């Protein structure tokens, strides 16, 4: 808020000058596409989750690419076998933290939803099937059974104006690591 000793106009002019200088210095960093901002937000949520899991277990990135990078699965259409995931070891059990894996409904096999991040049981297996009802049978449909899911996480914008990190967490089944 404006200082008592400074007029509103003077305060505004000073701030405007400072903001312009800031924009000039950092525009190459902040002027990125919406997709990159959304990706950053999503990864920030993953970091929050992993930071919590670090307190109860050991994390190990798996299936890195040839450059040693973590290859982030950005769409449920991607084959999870081609992307990286996190192994979470708790009390001798190795859970899987994965992104963009569809979960098949317990009640109806034809229904699936896709949380942004899931924690899967150690024995979980991402199945792939060709189904005429999905992409005319031209692409594989990847999913896991609901009973293999420990928890599901949705990256969510809290309000229309907000992009501040918010993570909705559902505990689905099993005895998950504490978050």
């Amino acid at each position, binding site marked *: 808020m404006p200082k008592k000793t400074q007029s509103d106009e003077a305060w505004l002019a000073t701030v405007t000058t400072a903001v312009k200088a800031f924009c000039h210095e950092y525009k190459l960093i902040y002027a990125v596409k919406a997709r990159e901002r959304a*990706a950053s937000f999503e990864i920030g949520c993953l970091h929050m989750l992993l930071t919590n899991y670090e307190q109860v277990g050991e994390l190990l990135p798996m299936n890195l690419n040839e450059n040693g990078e*973590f290859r982030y699965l950005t769409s449920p259409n991607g084959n999870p076998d081609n992307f990286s995931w996190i192994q979470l070891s708790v009390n001798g059990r190795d859970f899987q933290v994965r992104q963009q894996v569809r979960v098949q409904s317990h009640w109806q096999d034809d229904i699936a939803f896709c949380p942004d991040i899931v924690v899967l049981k150690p024995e979980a297996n991402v199945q792939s099937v060709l189904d005429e009802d999905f992409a005319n049978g031209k692409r594989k449909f990847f999913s896991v059974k609901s009973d293999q899911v420990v928890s599901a996480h949705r990256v969510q914008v809290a309000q229309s*104006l907000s992009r501040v990190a918010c993570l909705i967490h559902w505990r689905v089944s099993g005895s998950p690591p504490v978050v």
Partner: protein
Amino acid sequence: MLFCLNSFYQRILAPLWASTTPPEVLGSKIPIRYGKTIVFDAKRNAAVNKMGSNFMQLCQRFQIQQMMLEAQRTSDLIWKINSAP
């Protein structure tokens, strides 16, 4: 001006800043490749952190409190302006 800075923080800075404090295991030593062109690594984290810190210093210099930036709705911001000490 306050509403502009709040919007910049909410829509631009906060999402970019969110990914810069990775756990030990990922995002710094091990870069994250998102799609074909986007990489989250230590270099990017440092640049975004510097931008974020400088933005917060700028706001502090003009006595704009952090809670003003963190207001998520216009009504929240107006309430905070009116209830500020």
